[in-house]
Structures are given as C-alpha cells and as structure tokens.
C-alpha cells in the first residue's frame, strides 16, 4: 500500500524509470509476437481495425487513436482524451447533475487520485464531496454503504483494486446483502471502482485481479471498462444505477487515447460490446486482454481467419444474448482473460456457455487465463503469467482445425 505514483500514470512513470529494460523487453516481446512489427492496434468503436505507428518501446498499446470518421452516428467530431480523463469526465458530469454523488477514497481529493481520475474535483466540489479518507478500506467502504443507505450516491475508489480485499467484509456482507436482508427497504447505489490487473512489474500484491473473488456475491454487478468510450459510458451508468456496481479498471489502460462524442451518452451495464464481427470463431474477452486479442486478430486475419471479438464488459451478469448469438453463428468459443484460471470469470463463462449453448458448439470451449501464480516481479516471468497474443493465435488455429 505504500506505492506512490507520480505523474499521470504507472505506465508513464515506469517507462521513464525503466527505459533500458523496456527496450530489452521490447526486443523480447518482438520475438514473442512473431510477425507484427508495429505492435499497435487502432480499435475503432465499430470494430474495424487500423494499424498505427508505435511511438513508444512498449509491448502494449498505450496510444491507440481511434477516429470515427465514417460510420459515426454523432454529427460533431467529438473530442480526444485519455481513458482516465474519460473516467473523470463521466464522473464530473454525474457530480454536476446530482449533488448527492460524492467520491471517497485515499488520495482522491487533494492529490487528485493516484491515477488522476479525480484530479481537480476537490477544488471544484470541496473536501466533503471528494473525501480524502484515512487508510481504512473496510471502514470507509462501510461508510459509503451507510451513506448510500441514507440517501447519498457515493463512489468508492480503491487506490488499487487489491486494497479492496480489506473491504471484502463490507462488500460481501453489506453491499451485496443489505437490500435483500432489509426486505428491499434500503438501496445501496454505491460504485466501487479502482485499477487492477497486471501492470508493469508492480509485484504480486499490486497485480491482483479481484473479479473472481467478487463474482459470487449476490446483489452486486461487475463491469470492466477497456476504452475511453466505454469507460465514460460505464462510469455514468454505474453511478446512475440503483444497484451496487463494481467497476474494474486496468492500470495499463489509463493512457489510452480515443475520440469520444461530445454529446452525453450512457452505456448499458448489462450489455457486451461487439469489437469485431466475424464468422469463424467467437473470442470473448474483457479489459486489457481485448488489446492482446486484437493484436492476435491482426495476425489471424493475415492468416485467413475471421475471428469475432466480443468485449463482454459486463462480468456479472453475463450478456448471454450477445454471446449466444455469436456462438450460434461461429460454433467455436475462445475465452481470453487476465483473471486467474481457477474460479475466474472465464471459468464461469465456460460453464454458462456450456449450459445454454452446448448444442451449438462444434468444439469444447477453450479458456486462456493467467497462470495460477502470484504475479512475479521479474519482467520475463510476469509476461508469461498473462496471456500473450501468440498464445491466442495458436489457440484459434487449434480450435479452427
């Protein structure tokens, strides 16, 4: 918990600090990603792909620029921003709209948030609406729940998702249950959000994925954002929802750039996002793995495959309609996730697909997840714990034989 992030995000800080290492890793990653030279995908919101130039020696896309020239429904060109700015924009719009919306967390106020999602909001809305809490996750999460029960709409920021393990008592016992045990008398419209996932050598405890731990809790919803567009939309939807929502962000995605509409928009919390329509195989993914999948998709397209990529976005509940339609079309499913293998989101999704769509499958559901190891510090080992694009390509080739 003593990690302090300067600057606008972990990736920027770590890049500058480890520039020599990153070059080595870049060379290594180039070997792993066999064919693609520009390891950099542009993901358009309508699912089409463009490739762009790689500006930084990083194995992950951090500067994806999407333009919405052709098929955009918006009449205005929109504005470009980074993902953390999109989150802040969504948050600010909701705080403007409803005075009961408030933020609580460590360093959200004067510091502006460890990933700058709440930057300047304390100046605008005051120290009570953007509350700097002491380091007491269990208690301030409980406090947010109590505030939600009595009429406010708090957003709890976990400085790192892993810290919310300390708040598990409150999230499981109170957040998920109180609406039910009170017979429907009290609602808990709380949003719990924070960055998680495997970053750049952040070590085991800061690289945790909590989706699997929370998914069994009845009474909560979980969503994961992956682009600035859906980050803003999901943030707004989560705040407006009467249910408790856990919004999973990823440490390495905060600097993604995209052009988003100027008009106000809200996304549906329970729906999945079609990233790339296809015919041969359904690839289900979320959060950062979306980008590894799209990277692999480029290779696959070159090899003649036509993958359909869906960002499931809603981790609990699953959008079985979008997923089902896709399975019915392609008959093959590959799940790519960063969650742990055992009891993860992929495991649940596999079970759900087998239960509902077994008749439509031509091959068993394959699930690529992170290794069941505590994330190692060493860069090479860390890379092997998460799913890499080459593994995705291999899996698709095997499934589509």
């Amino acid at each position, binding site marked *: 918990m003593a990690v302090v992030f300067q600057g606008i995000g972990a990736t920027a800080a770590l890049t500058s600090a480890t520039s020599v290492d990153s070059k080595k890793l870049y060379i290594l990653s180039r070997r792993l990603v066999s064919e693609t030279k520009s390891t950099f995908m542009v993901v358009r919101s309508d699912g089409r792909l463009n490739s762009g130039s790689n500006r930084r020696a990083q194995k992950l896309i951090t500067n994806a620029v999407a333009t919405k020239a052709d098929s955009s429904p918006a009449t205005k060109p929109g504005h470009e921003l980074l993902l953390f700015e999109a989150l802040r924009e969504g948050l600010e719009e909701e705080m403007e709209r409803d005075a009961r919306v408030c933020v609580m967390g460590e360093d959200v106020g004067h510091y502006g948030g460890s990933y700058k999602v709440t930057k300047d909001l304390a100046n605008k809305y005051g120290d009570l609406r953007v509350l700097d809490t002491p380091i007491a996750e269990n208690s301030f999460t409980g406090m947010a729940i109590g505030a939600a029960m009595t009429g406010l709409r708090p957003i709890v920021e976990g400085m790192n998702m892993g810290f919310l393990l300390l708040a598990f008592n409150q999230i499981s016992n109170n957040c998920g249950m109180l609406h039910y045990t009170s017979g429907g008398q009290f609602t808990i419209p709380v949003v719990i959000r924070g960055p998680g996932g495997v970053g750049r050598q952040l070590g085991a405890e800061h690289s945790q994925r909590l989706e699997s731990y929370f998914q069994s809790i009845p009474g909560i919803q979980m969503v994961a954002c992956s682009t600035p567009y859906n980050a803003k939309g999901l943030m707004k939807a989560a705040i407006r929802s009467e249910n408790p929502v856990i919004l999973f962000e990823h440490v390495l995605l905060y600097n993604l750039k995209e052009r988003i509409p100027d008009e106000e928009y809200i996304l549906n919390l329970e729906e999945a996002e079609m990233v790339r329509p296809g015919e041969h195989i359904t690839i289900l993914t979320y959060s950062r793995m979306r980008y590894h999948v799209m990277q692999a998709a480029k290779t696959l397209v070159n090899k003649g495959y036509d993958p359909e990529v869906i960002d499931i976005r809603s981790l609990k509940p699953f959008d*079985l309609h979008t997923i089902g339609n896709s399975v019915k079309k392609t008959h093959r499913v590959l799940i790519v996730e960063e969650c742990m293998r055992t009891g993860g989101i992929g495991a649940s999704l596999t079970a759900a697909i087998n239960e509902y769509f077994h008749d439509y499958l031509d091959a068993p559901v394959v699930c690529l997840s992170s290794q069941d190891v505590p994330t190692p510090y060493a860069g090479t080992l860390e890379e092997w714990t998460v799913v890499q694009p080459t593994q995705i390509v291999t899996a698709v080739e095997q499934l589509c034989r």
Partner: protein
Amino acid sequence: MTAAATKIIQPLPLNFTNTTPRSPDKALFHPLKTTPSSSFPASTHKLRLTKPNSTLARRRSTAVFAVSDVVQEKKPKSNTFHPNLLITKEEGLELYEDMILGRSFEDMCAQMYYRGKMFGFVHLYNGQEAVSTGFIKLLKNEDCIVSTYRDHVHALSKGVPARAVMSELFGKTTGCCRGQGGSMHMFSKEHNVLGGFAFIGEGIPVATGAAFTSKYRREVLKEGDCDHVTLAFFGDGTCNNGQFFECLNMAALWKLPIVFVVENNLWAIGMSHLRATSDPEIWKKGPAFGMPGVHVDGMDVLKVREVAKEAINRARRGEGPTLVECETYRFRGHSLADPDELRDPSEKAHYAARDPITALKKYMVENNLVSEAELKAIEKKIDEVVEEAVEFADISPHPGRSQLLENVFADPRGFGIGPDGKYRCEDPKFTEGTAHV
C-alpha cells in the same frame, strides 16, 4: 493534516471531581465510574443543587459531572411539580413502558423459540433495557440507529411495531424485512433503523456513513437544519475490532454527528472482556482519538439518559462524536443456544439485583411520581401488545416462492440479459421465483 483540521478537545484527567464553570463550546464529560454500592441517583445525600435562579429545574447526582447546561429541559408537564427529580411523570411512564416492552418481548421470544416458532441464532437483550431506552427515547424519528445481532429491543425502542418484529422472527412475510432478515437483521426505513448486523463491528462503519450523510446534507446540500444524529450500539467484544477504531478516527476527524454506545456486558459469548482486552476500560479509547469518553452505569436508565442527552446534543450541535461505555449485563446467555455455564452465579446475582426495571419502578414509586396501579396497567397493556404480536405473527403467511428473487437487486435488470435477448426479470417465471438467473 490540513489547517482546517478539527480542534482536538483534550478531556480532563480522571481525578477531577469539581464541576467546571460551564462553557458550552467545551462541554466535556468526565468519566463517571460508579461503585457497585452506589444507589440509584435519587438518593438525596448524593444530590447537588443547580443554581437557584436556573430555569432548568433539575437536580443532578454527584455521579454526573460537568454536563453542559445548554441542554434545555422541557418544563414538567405533570400537575405536581418535582424540582428534584430527573424525569417527569410522562417521561417516567414512557421509559417504564419501553423497558417493560423490551423485557416482555424478549421473554416471549424465548418461549416461542423453544416452541419451535423461530430458529437460528436469537440473541436476547434481557437486562440491558436501560441502554436502549435511555438512549433511543431521546431521538427523533429522523435520527438513525445501528445495532448488532442483539437488536430486537433497539428496533422496538425506535418505534418498529412489536408485531412487525415478531413476524420477522417467525420468518413471515409481514415481518419488518419481509421475513428475509431474521433476528439479526432488523431494518426499518420508516423508523430509520439501519440494522441489525450479524458480524460484530460491521454496523459501525454503516453508522458512520449515516452520520456522514447528515453532515453532507447540512454542508453540501445546504439543508441547514439537518441535525440528524446516528447512534451505533455494539458490545465489549467489538471494541477490540479494527472497524471500531477506524470509525472512531474518522468520526472524530470529521466531527460526525454520531454517538458510539458500548454495551459492555463483560462477556462476548464465553470470552470475558477482561481476558480479551489489554485495557478493559473502553471509555478511555475515546480521548485517544480526540473525542470524550464516558463511562456510565448502564443498569440505571436515568443515568444513561442524562449522559445520552449530552452526547446526543453534542452531536446535534456539530461538536462531533462521543464514546459512551455503558456498564450493563445480559441476564440470559449470549443466545438461546448458549447454556451460559461460564458466568459466575454471584456475578449474575449481583446484576440481577440491579435490574433496571425494578430500579426505575422503585424510583418512581418512592418519589410519588406514579402509583403502583399505573405501572401495573402498563404491564398489562404490554402483555396484550406482545400477545397480539404473537397472534399476528402466527396467522401471517410464510413468504411465497415469488419472493425469492425480489429484492436481490434494487434494479432487477442486474440479473442480466438472457439468451433470448430479454432481461431475466422480464421472464414471467421471475415473479414466480422459479426463473433461471
């Protein structure tokens, strides 16, 4: 720590025995340690007169120190004017009725449990009524309370009808939580009872949140007259839990309008407080966090009420939280499943002799506030209320299957979209409780 940090009020040391010249801004408590041999507050040799020209016609016993005189006592409404007593006749009857209700209700719960009408863990409050009545009867409806699993009497004191609580215990759909909460989860939105928590310490952050809302409404939403106070009730065992300390810190830091009420009954199931706690004097933990810590005889409803008045008014004035340790005792075991073999019979006898109901009765009768007949009438009335509650609970229906999936989500779209493209909650089977979710 910013410059706008709260001013830490340092409580005065333990041995201070004189009343200070009162300054409303710095109203402080002194720890009130009553010896086991102390008598009920009305014994004349311990009374100290207030200023003769004071409009507050009340006496205080020497057991209560340095209570701010900002508290406005309502003028006694009874025909006979009793300048020496702590309560009026109306107040006395209200307190008595509330404690009798608590006691009778809990006794009936025990009967019903052994007759198989309720199951699970049931924790009874016998013996501790003074704390619940002493505090909660001072609250407005908009004030919130949070309790633990020993919550029946807190809910009753706050105004939840006995029939609703009994129904809930029977697991009937007419219960205050539709039968979905049970003994340990009493909630009432109408009466602002925020639960009812099964794990100890869980409710304290929730109470802190309710107090935060009160402050937020006053300062951010500009509802200037919002002075709602929250009371958090919990036991001695909870005072070793992290959530307790974390919330003491936050409440004092932001001066939240909350009173932390410790019902120290010396036992956490079978664990003696003295065996579990390095420093057993819980009230001392308040000043460590910058709030007054008070110890009060929790078997004496009038003493509790005096302390509660000050703590609640402190919170209402925006001066922040108070930690009140009530020395009390539960006459029964931890729960109805507890054989209660560990506690020393002489300890039980000692506290049984200090039964709060008997004590209040004695006080009121000796001071000619009420007659025995009036008290008997109250007891009869309460008997009827409790019997009616049982009858009501008996004839109430059990929850149907359709109730299974309701209330899981406030917005049932949270169950997601099914394979057919429709929301699960739109499935007709959802309202029947048989939908696949």
